């Protein structure tokens, strides 16, 4: 009991986000348990096997969030650079030697701990962090194409180029998400339009080359697009058409309130009811209400991140919080859109809900970072208040806040110095904190 209280005391950051994460995990357990029945039978496993596995994965995920959120977010600036530089060779390695699942080479196995993970998950996280850092640094020159936009754009292009051959949809999704980040990061609309045009042209070239040479997965892409628009045979047996059809049947079966927990019938027909198409199972079992709740939870998460962004005085923290949450929520929205047949099949999972291992942990890291920013903002505001009205803060009921703020005062002061705007004298000192240059305050 005491340990629990201790743990709760040490758990900082936005309480609403924590709540959303716990709720999503709970929904994940319900949906995964229901939808893995067939899989468990096929694999000759106990029917609880995948539930227990998911409990463990999510438990570890929560521990990762807790662990990450206790790290001062400023440390991620340096880490972002390291991770990004690490991700490029890893992607290259995966492209050449990765485990092939569903034609695309996407997975690698870590040699020591014998864990497979999707390198693109790591690369995505690294890229978003790196982008948050770069955008915050380049704010002064961002409107300039050569000095601002190109340096920001290049890392994105590298990563996307390395992911694209094996997993075009991830690369596209990544490019699009990064464009949202560019938009937020004040990149000129003119430049964004140019980028979009270049992107479409690039796709056309890639598609043509792939189709002509047979290299890559042009046929899969073509099929997915034609399936989506329903121009080809509609016999409902072709993989994607079948999946979409089954997902739609699941949604139609759900109604407003759903069939009830565990009563999905479509879980026995959908090929991957526990990963890509878990949202349709949620609608089937819990109805539009359940589906709406899930959408609301993601939006709530995003809104809280926007609030953190508003409160965060530092560009890096602000971009980090809004960038990571917007990409996470955007992926969730895309996945749900696939489920309701709003966009073509992409092979994305529903973050924190779909069954999985490493992808949930990478999502956890992202959430942890957002919470870390949140925690920092809370503490900073707390310490400001304390400075303004020390008596009031001391007498505050929340003793935990006080304790932690005391611990971090020194660090804060250092950062607080950095806040002072546009003073070349201070810029030099910032270098000590962040290797790669100053973070202009907003």
């Amino acid at each position, binding site marked *: 009991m005491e340990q629990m209280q201790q743990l709760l005391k040490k758990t900082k950051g936005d309480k609403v986000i924590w709540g959303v994460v716990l709720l999503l995990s709970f929904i994940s357990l319900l949906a995964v348990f229901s939808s893995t029945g067939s899989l468990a039978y096929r694999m000759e496993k106990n029917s609880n096997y995948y539930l227990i596995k998911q409990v463990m994965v999510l438990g570890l995920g929560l521990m990762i969030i807790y662990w990450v959120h206790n790290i001062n977010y400023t440390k991620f600036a340096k880490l972002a650079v390291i991770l990004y530089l690490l991700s490029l060779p890893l992607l290259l390695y995966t492209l050449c030697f990765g485990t092939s699942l569903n034609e695309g080479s996407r997975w690698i196995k870590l040699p020591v701990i014998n864990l497979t993970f999707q390198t693109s998950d790591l690369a995505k996280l690294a890229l978003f962090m790196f982008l948050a850092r770069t955008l915050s640094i380049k704010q002064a020159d961002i409107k300039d194409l050569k000095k601002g936009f190109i340096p920001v754009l290049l890392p994105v292009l590298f990563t996307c180029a390395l992911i694209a051959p094996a997993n075009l949809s991830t690369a596209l999704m990544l490019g699009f998400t990064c464009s949202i980040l560019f938009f937020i990061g004040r990149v000129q609309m003119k430049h964004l339009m140019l980028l979009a045009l270049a992107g479409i042209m690039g796709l056309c070239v890639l598609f043509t080359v792939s189709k002509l040479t047979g290299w890559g997965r042009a046929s899969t892409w073509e099929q997915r697009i034609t399936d989506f628009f329903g121009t080809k045979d509609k016999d409902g047996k072709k993989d994607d058409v079948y999946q979409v059809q089954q997902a739609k049947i699941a949604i139609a079966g759900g109604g407003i309130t759903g069939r009830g927990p565990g009563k999905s*019938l479509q879980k026995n027909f959908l090929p991957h009811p526990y990963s890509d198409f878990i949202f349709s199972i949620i609608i089937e079992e819990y109805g539009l209400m359940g589906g709406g709740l899930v959408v609301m939870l993601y939006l709530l998460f995003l809104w809280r991140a926007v609030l953190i962004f508003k409160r965060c005085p530092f560009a890096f923290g*602000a971009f980090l919080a809004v960038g990571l949450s917007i990409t996470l929520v955007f992926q969730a929205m895309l996945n749900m859109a696939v489920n309701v047949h709003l966009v073509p099949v992409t092979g994305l999972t529903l973050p924190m809900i779909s069954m999985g291992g490493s992808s949930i942990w990478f999502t956890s890291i992202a959430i942890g970072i957002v919470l870390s920013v949140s925690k920092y903002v809370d503490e900073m505001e707390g310490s400001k208040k304390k400075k303004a009205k020390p008596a009031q803060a001391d007498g505050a009921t929340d003793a935990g806040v006080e304790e932690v703020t005391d611990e971090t005062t020194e660090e804060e002061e250092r950062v607080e110095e950095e806040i002072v705007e546009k003073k070349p004298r201070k810029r030099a000192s910032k270098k000590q904190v962040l290797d790669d240059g100053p973070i202009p305050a907003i």
Partner: protein
Amino acid sequence: MNIKKDIRFRVYIAFTCICLFGCAIIFKAAMIQVKEGPKLRAMAREMHTRFDTLIAERGNIYTEEGALLSSSIPEFDVHVDFSVIDSATFRKNIDTLALCMSRLTMDKTQDQYKEEFVRAYEEGSKYYPLARRKFKYFEYEALRKFPIFNRGKALGGFIADAKEKRENPYGMRAFRTIGVFRDKNMSGLEATYNRVLIGENGRRVVQKSTGNVWVPIEGSEVEPQNGKDIVTTLDINVQEVAEYALRSILEKYECLYGTCIVMETKTGKIRTLVNLGRQPNGTYWEDFNYAMIPTEPGSTFKLATLLSLLNDKLINVDQNVDAEGGTVHFGNRTMHDSHLGLGVMPIWKAYAESSNTAMAKLANSNYANNPKKFIDHLHQFRLDTFTGIDLLGERRTVITRPGTASWSNSTLPWMGTGYGIQISPLHTCMLYNAVANGGKMMKPYLVSSIREYGKEVRRIEPVVLTTVGDAGVIAQAQKCTRAVVTEGTAKGIESPYYTMCGKTGTAQVADKGISYGDGVYQGSFVGYLPAENPQYTICVVIRTKPHSRAYYGGAIAAPVFRMVADKIFSENIGAWGGPLDSLARFSTGVVPAKSATARNYNVLFNAIRKKLPMPDEDVNKIMQVSVDSTNRIVVAPKSMYRNLVPDVKGMSLRDAVYMLETFGMHVNVKGKGKVAEQSITPGTTVTKGQVITIQLS
């Protein structure tokens, strides 16, 4: 614009867009439900549920005594999917498995099995047949428990498909009559009564559930109506004797085929139907229903001529007829008797001696001017139509009719002796049975009742088809058939113990691929017994090989008749009155069974027409017959002492078992006949559940 405000503005825009995206998702989901909902839900129902057929069990075929003639038993086709067996498990258990297999099947050694399995395993065979044959249920049960296989289908690769197999426990016995049932291939009673036997499949709705399992939806079931059982009139014991008797003759003279029909006189029940055809390898098999194939009957048909003449009051069997030495000309053809030299004699004598010329002359002189009258009688005797037996495959008979191209002035005399017409042995049997039955022609039938779950749901009653003559006509016809046995062509066959009547027949055969010149004969004997009060009619028809050394009906068919008649007689001791030789010794004081139930004694005393008072009403009580001091036979309850082992020596098996079991003992039986020895001395105290062995003589 302020940088911070600009960024905040852009964030709000992005957030709003994502919110709209979220709304669009929910809206699209709602649209799917509303717009495509009905169609999708209908698809879902179709996919999630399907109809499952519940197979009805096919009914059995029993005899009236309760012997099972045909039944469905499960058989198993077993295959092994070696690809799913884990290599460690395979290596560890292969020796034991091979040993178990070799012990179960006894057809290969452990090493052979091991070698086979290892090879199949290395090839990764996914559907390796465990044996060329199917496995019986008990073998399947054993197989399932063998190492590796006991891990089931998913881990042990054990794939067993159950199939129903129709099995005839009596093998070849009445095989053609019972018939076969294999998929679409049916014959015999199986085909005739298919609609009764097959039942009606039920169905239910099943829903797909986890792991490709289809779970029935409660309340959706329409239970299958299992097939009903049919009870045939066949007597498997008589059938066995008839088959044996017929086969021994067929083998002896290498005949082409033979058939034997036993019909119960009063009812028309077919008690026995044997059809044996010679196979290329010289053995005999129930291959065709020869009893139902119309052929030229020969002399046995003379009964029809006789009955026709008697019905028209044209003759009296005591009138004389002149056989003219056995050679008479009709038109440009000459008819011969097979035994020449007969002169003037009474008609009954001519019938007994089977004189062709006499019968031909009678037919010709009486009907030449109006042959239709004769043909009309054949119609009356139902020889121009189906017998109506409940067995598929009857063929139309052939009767040459006046006015057609094939009718000539020699047709009638030849027809009078059984040529120029084709009727089946069953028709002949039916006609003789009518004479035996006082003129009433009974419809032959093979199924006497239909049962459902052991309860009779339909009884098939005997049907009188027609009357072939009044009492006077029948009496004269019976006189003639009796004379055949007493002083005619079948003089040698009568038993000293019971009487019989009949008619021999020997016809030259002209049939598909056979002409009269080929020397193929059809020897037949049809008759009934006992003469005084006919109970059974037996018809034996045998077709010889070309130029066989024996071909007369009296030589080849009559012995079969006699063997079957003897069997029927011995089975029916006490059932009808007659010179019961085996009981005749009773007068000397030797009683065949010292103790028996009152019921059995009643039968016995009825049979020997001795009215002895029964001291007790209870027919199940054990009685003992003894001779008292005044030398009179008395029946008294057998004195039995509670708790003391009774003396069962001299008793019949059934009575002995009944008695011992009333004392609470278990009986172990050895041998056949009457009880000769018992393992526990009479008078010993009985222990409940004690086993007593009785040795029969």
